């Protein structure tokens, strides 16, 4: 019990030691915070280097012109998976854009102050972070089970459900930034609410709304879990009726990366590089346009 008191007493007589303790704590904080940030940057760098080293040699013309090869065979590309991914993401964003923008419009314009809107806003925020695999289970029960087959439509709907909350959130945020005076000016000219929304609020918030759609696109382009039970995968060329399994990049990467065949693994790495590069470019574009507070 005596020791601490004596140290405290000597400290009081020698202020230099107290200052040193504070300085050490401060130094420690600075160093550890910098190290934490550096680790984050290193991880991103390491992921990119890994993808480039392992994926770049797979970038041949055949990658974009040939469908995925059978197990154990040589050659082939991932053209069917690229096309399938484009179609699935396209379906997803085509469904999600009108729904998301309209729902965001309701929250920002019609539902201001209403309890229902507050509830929907809250649940939308929760849906934003909901486990995507549960959305896969939902769409499986809703579409794959009754239709009796995996389908591109089910995959597209699953992706749409993931994209909607992102678009709702950005649309609402961006529309509430539009000053009310603009709306009032429109209304004073005799324009009905829908005209004010379409020609004044939407126009003023258009850059933000488009950014939300790009962010949603970046989010669903790499989603794998919800596609596992809905679009699954397919080694043949894409068929336009979208019934049955549809080849897509994320599930292809998942299956090929864990396969024992070196050719498949190579294709998985090439696909991984392609998809990550696309998503990072999309996110950078989106983030350069607006402030990054919508990523939550």
């Amino acid at each position, binding site marked *: 019990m005596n020791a601490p008191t004596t140290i405290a007493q000597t400290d009081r007589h020698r202020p230099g030691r107290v200052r040193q303790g*504070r300085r050490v704590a*401060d130094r420690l*904080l600075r160093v*550890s*915070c*910098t190290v*934490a*940030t550096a*680790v*984050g*940057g290193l991880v991103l760098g*390491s*992921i990119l280097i890994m993808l480039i080293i*392992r994926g770049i040699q797979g970038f041949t013309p055949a990658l974009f012109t040939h469908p995925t090869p059978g197990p154990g065979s040589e050659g082939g590309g991932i053209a069917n998976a690229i096309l399938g991914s484009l179609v699935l993401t396209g379906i997803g964003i085509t469904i999600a854009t009108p729904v998301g923008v*309209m729902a965001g*419009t*309701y929250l920002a314009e*019609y539902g201001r102050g209403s309890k*229902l*809107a507050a509830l*929907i806003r809250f*649940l939308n925020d*929760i*849906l934003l*972070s*909901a*486990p995507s*695999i*549960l959305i896969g*289970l*939902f769409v*499986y029960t809703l579409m794959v089970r009754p239709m009796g087959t995996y389908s591109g439509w089910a995959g597209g709907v699953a992706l749409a459900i993931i994209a*909607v*909350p992102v678009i*709702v959130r950005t649309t609402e945020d961006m529309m509430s930034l539009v000053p009310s005076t603009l709306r009032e000016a429109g209304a004073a000219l005799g324009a*009905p*609410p*829908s*005209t004010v929304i*379409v020609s004044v609020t939407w126009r003023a918030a258009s850059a933000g709304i488009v950014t939300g759609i790009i962010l949603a696109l*970046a989010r669903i*382009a*790499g*989603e*794998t*879990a919800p596609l*596992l039970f809905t679009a*699954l995968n397919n080694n043949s060329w894409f068929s336009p009726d979208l019934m049955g399994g549809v080849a897509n990049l*994320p599930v292809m990467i*998942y299956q090929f990366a*864990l396969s024992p065949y070196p050719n498949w693994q190579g294709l998985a790495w090439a696909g*991984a590089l392609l998809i990550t590069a696309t*998503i*990072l470019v*999309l*996110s950078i574009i989106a983030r350069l346009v607006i402030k*990054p*507070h919508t*990523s*939550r």
Partner: protein
Amino acid sequence: MSALTETIALDRSRTRTVRKAPSRSLDTLFRTFSYGAALLVLLVLAGILGSILYGGWPAFREFGFGFLTSSAWNVGTEQYGALVAVIGTVASAFLALLIGVPVSLGIAVFLTQLCPGWARKPVAMTIELLAAVPSIIYGMWGLFVFAPLFARFIEIPVSNVVEGLPIVGTLLYARVPSGVGVLTAGIILAIMIVPFIASIARDMLDQIPTVLRESAYGIGCTTWEVVRHVLVPQAAVSIIGAIMLGLGRALGETMAVTFVVGNANRLSASIFDPSSTIASRIANEFNEADGLQLNALMALGCILFVITFVVLIIARLLTRRVKAA
């Protein structure tokens, strides 16, 4: 003069088609559409809960409360229990928080207090891009890059040191040092939730009035003291909300975990041993499952739904309250 302007005005009204206001019904239609779209969000959430409850119900009826406490997962004898997956989920998410929270707070403090102005934007962008990397890429990085290094430089040396010791000897002993396991999953999850927690924490720290910070520096506080006594108490509630949000993500993360958790149905006291999480088990088995196994997987989905949604609701309540104030 006035006659001239009048003619011009007249001319204009004649040449330009008069824009008609949309009819009343169109206006109502627009309103109904936006109302319907908003209700759809509500319906989807209800649909998710409804569909997995419906799918999981037979398993709950068959095993009752024992489903939660049983560690069996045997397709042959049709005995299913959630215990291993639930423990794996909670343990990996807990480890993710243990590692991820200090790192995210460190990054938030670095970005708001220490970083020179010119570097702030690129550094923040780098951290946020970590959130954009697809989860399957984290899985591949974890399995092919991180796990071998982890096995060689952490698992094997640590196992050798702790072997035979009480408590740590079981907790940190790897029977097969393969690099995959609960701790690896926790580390990968930590990396994945860091950008989310860091970005919210940074926003919260930015919102604290500069005067508070400056007056603390003004009386001679060091950065550590400013952070510890001024910033953290101010932002505490919302930072806890951000952490809960990260927890919600970690609990439901699927693909990355499926790659690195080892997918074994085994209760083990060691965090180096492979295990399963709810999401990884669903991802692994769902496509080959039918009958009671399918119901059991859906029931696991129900448990995941309940756990994550409780966490996310708390998170949103905490982050929201501060915004309103």
